[in-house]
């Protein structure tokens, strides 16, 4: 139990290797949802929740089924998608019945992120050693997997919320007609990304 190590894992996932702004995974939802802060909050909540649970599931699936049977190398993507999709469907039914308020807050985003690239990426990284291009194939323990996933999910939410706030402001700014909408959004995203590259190599991560 080394707290320092958890902190580093979290920081790497949250900031230094931010899933949206550094690794550019899940750009579709990044640009699609960020038109208003309200929808971004709902999406962020849904992503944090789904990521945590799906990472746990895929971690267990890899360590107890795929790895011992020696079939993980070629079966990890289809089986992870299957697990995540099934879980999201179950979850949607469950909270619709038990927590209508929660369902209203993030209900419509749940089916959207069934196979969101960020969710699948985080779930794969914590389960399959060596999936990220690191120099060593690192095998996460379950608590480490949770910390890492939480970091990724928070990194996603933070980037999405900041970007949504910026876009709401850009909407009323005097932008040249040719740049209105997505072009200026892409430029903004790349500038945010450049800013975050400043963290690269922090603590040797």
């Amino acid at each position, binding site marked *: 139990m080394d707290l320092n190590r958890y902190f580093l894992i979290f920081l790497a996932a949250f900031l230094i290797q931010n899933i949206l702004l550094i690794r550019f995974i899940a750009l579709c939802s990044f640009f699609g949802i960020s038109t208003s802060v309200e929808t971004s909050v709902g999406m962020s909540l849904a992503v944090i929740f789904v990521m945590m649970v799906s990472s746990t599931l895929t971690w267990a699936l890899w360590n107890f089924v795929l790895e011992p*049977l020696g079939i993980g190398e070629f079966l990890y993507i*289809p089986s992870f998608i*299957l697990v995540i999709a*099934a879980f999201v469907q179950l979850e949607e*039914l*469950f909270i619709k019945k*038990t927590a209508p308020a929660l369902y209203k807050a993030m209900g419509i985003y749940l089916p959207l992120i069934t196979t969101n690239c960020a969710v699948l990426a985080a779930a794969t990284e914590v389960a399959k050693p060596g999936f990220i291009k690191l120099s060593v194939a690192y095998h996460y323990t379950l608590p480490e997997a949770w910390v890492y996933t939480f970091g990724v999910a928070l990194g996603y939410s933070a980037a999405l919320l900041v970007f949504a706030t910026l876009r709401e402001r850009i909407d*009323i700014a*005097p932008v040249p007609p040719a740049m209105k909408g997505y072009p200026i959004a892409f430029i903004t995203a790349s500038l945010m990304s450049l800013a975050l590259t400043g963290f690269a190599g922090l603590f040797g991560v």
Partner: protein
Amino acid sequence: MLIYAIATMGLMGLIFGALLAVASKKFAVASDERVGKVRAVLPGVNCGACGYAGCDALAEAIVAGKAALDACKAGGPRVAEKVADIMGAKLDKHPERMVALVKCVGNKDKTKYRGEYSGVPSCRAAVMAGNGPKDCLYGCLGFGDCVRACPFDAIHISPGGVAVVDADKCTACGKCVAACPRGIIELVPASHKVHVLCMNQEKGVVTRKQCTVGCIACQACVRACPKGAISVQNNVAKIDYSKCDDCALCAAKCPVKVISGRKESVEAAAS
């Protein structure tokens, strides 16, 4: 290895399939079929004028008896009647159709500007940055906060820089009323044609210097009205629509021609 792979995927598919089948039965939410029907006749733009989160939420509230049958402001009487049909109830009263009205026709030629505003093109921003470029503090700024707020594309900025409502498209949802930082948009009965198109509360002398179509509170309309429907409050004339019968005698007497009302004349005055 191939067997393992097939068996694993097959088993997982079976287990998840069974789980989902059980869950969909167990967690099935009993829903009233009237909710779907009511939802279908609501406009579906989720404007929020009813006070609920959206059309879905309002449909549920109506069926649950928490909201009135005519709670949908945007839908107006037509939607209210359809909802009443579905619910098997009668409407107590037929609400009058309302439309939004921008109470300003002071376009670029008619209102004086004290400077040029080149900041963020938003009425709210302009008001915060030195109360806008116009001399008149009650006039339309024309940066289109109301245009952006309108879910029905029913309000536009005229070439002269003043917002004009398209009464045919307007559903009186009230979004523009809330969006206008000057508070010069009002909901008025759609059947009425005669309106005072100014909100300037300055004294007549001051108003005259600011704008050629500003109400100078001369009381001519008050004297002209046979029904006693017009009163001057805070230096601006106001029509009581419950008394007004659209005779337009006041419009004829108004020295600054700020009382008018036919849709065409509002547009002509503003452009």
